[in-house]
């Protein structure tokens, strides 16, 4: 099937074979975004994002891209950065509205559904454009950990592990090797760092920085940044495994 629809890609309307080209083009915007992965483990969820350091003048660890929503939800986005900020703002509004109405924290699946519906609305009208982001929703609530990824056309699924952005294919191959039913949060942090390092090959000359957040038992159900010392430990582990050319299936606790 042709991926360019002559005349049918100029607005949000169906092509003769039932495709929405504008919505599909939005995926192309995300494909060039920075690599972002989510891991759902036994007792929590990890979100990790690779940030290319485009200039020495950028302040390290500043300019975060993973947002907190309420206390127990984290949202990472990759693709158009401002679209991601918009998604996070919308998610916070939804969380507030849920709390106002029901007096409790919004469940993870509800948040994913609300955001999925919102994103889908932007594929319904020619007066708007679809979102140029993949959004990762990480939540920990009464029902345990949740991980969802919302695509630019509004589709969302729950995942054990998922990746998006430039290095998504390599990351996905690595994620498929993990055993999510036994993985604990601290080990998942190491694996996340390793996977981000593994995807980094294509632009080896550029500096990069990992932004990583987590939510789960380890954090008392609060979404927060992975502590610096743990992140550094994980990055050291990642460097050893990836750059040292060791087999990637080495035990996690060396």
């Amino acid at each position, binding site marked *: 099937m042709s991926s360019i629809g002559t005349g049918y890609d100029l607005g949000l309307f169906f092509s003769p074979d039932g495709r929405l080209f504008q919505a599909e083009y939005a995926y192309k915007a995300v494909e060039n975004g920075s690599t972002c992965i989510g891991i759902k483990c036994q007792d929590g969820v990890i979100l990790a994002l690779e940030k290319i350091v485009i200039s020495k003048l950028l302040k390290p660890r500043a300019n*975060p891209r993973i947002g*907190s929503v309420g*206390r127990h939800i984290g949202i990472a986005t990759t693709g158009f950065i401002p679209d991601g900020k918009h998604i996070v703002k919308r998610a916070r509004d939804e969380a507030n509205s849920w*709390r106002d109405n029901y007096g409790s924290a919004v469940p993870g699946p509800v948040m994913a559904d609300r955001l999925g519906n919102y994103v889908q609305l932007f594929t319904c009208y020619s007066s708007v454009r679809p979102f140029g982001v993949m959004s990762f929703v990480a939540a920990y609530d009464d029902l345990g950990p949740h991980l969802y990824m919302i695509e630019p056309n509004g589709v969302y699924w729950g995942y054990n592990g998922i990746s998006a952005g430039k290095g998504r294919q390599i990351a996905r191959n690595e994620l498929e090797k993990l055993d999510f039913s036994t993985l604990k949060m601290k080990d998942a942090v190491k694996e996340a760092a390793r996977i981000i390092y593994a995807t980094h090959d294509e632009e080896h000359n550029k500096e990069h920085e990992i932004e990583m957040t987590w939510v789960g038992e380890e954090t008392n159900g609060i979404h*927060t940044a992975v502590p610096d010392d743990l992140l550094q430990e994980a990055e050291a582990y990642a460097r050893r495994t990836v750059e040292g050319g060791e087999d990637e299936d080495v035990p996690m606790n060396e």
Partner: protein
Amino acid sequence: MSFLELTEPWGKPAKNVFFPTSSDVQQNAAPVISRTTQPIVTGASVIALKFADGVMIAADNLASYGSLARFFDVERLTKVGNNTIVGIGGDVSDYQHLQRILEDLEIKESNYGDGYALQPSHIHEYLSRVFYARRNKMDPYWNQAIVAGVDGSQKEPFVAFADLRGNTYTAPAIATGFAIHLALPLMRKVTDDDRWKTLSKERARATIDDCIRVLYYRDGRSLNKFSVATITADGIDFQTNQSVSSEWAFAEKQYGYGTQEV
């Protein structure tokens, strides 16, 4: 006979049944405004004082329904942020709404993730603006509040008052409600003239207990079951289900109102 002729006697249907515009719907009616005209379920006093290492704040666990002691396990001290306790008296439904507002504030601030934490002085300023905005709409939150905590990087003891009219003030010892008359004099004995700067935690607690005791003796809307929160640079010590002793032995020697001997 046509359908229209048949249904005419029943009246014409509205042009648009989903968004009716017919005359039986009053257009541009003045919105119905209901205001808090009086408190219904009420909490009584809150007391707070500074001492050498921090602040102590206390409130009993009673919510009265008029003169009926209706609810016995109402927590009137609320933690906001990491080092602030807000104690609120007055209407309990308004208090519960203020709790929601303060929780929204807490979540909103924590979501920035910028490393700045909500301080007691910020919370007090915010709360007082909320009070003042609502009184200007002639629709007040019917409460008196004390914000207590340790403020800023220096962890300075902080105690401040805010109420339904937007009034604010600070002092080393603050009380709301009946405690303004009954407890404040006792607290001032140990805090006035910068004495709070040398006041020990134990003496502060003894003063709080004395105040609660006096309130329980003489305030008909109080309860001998209360919570005390102690906020120091080390954190918050939140104690619930506290009570004080009382002395009634002298009552046996009281007879009548003057002339009665036995």
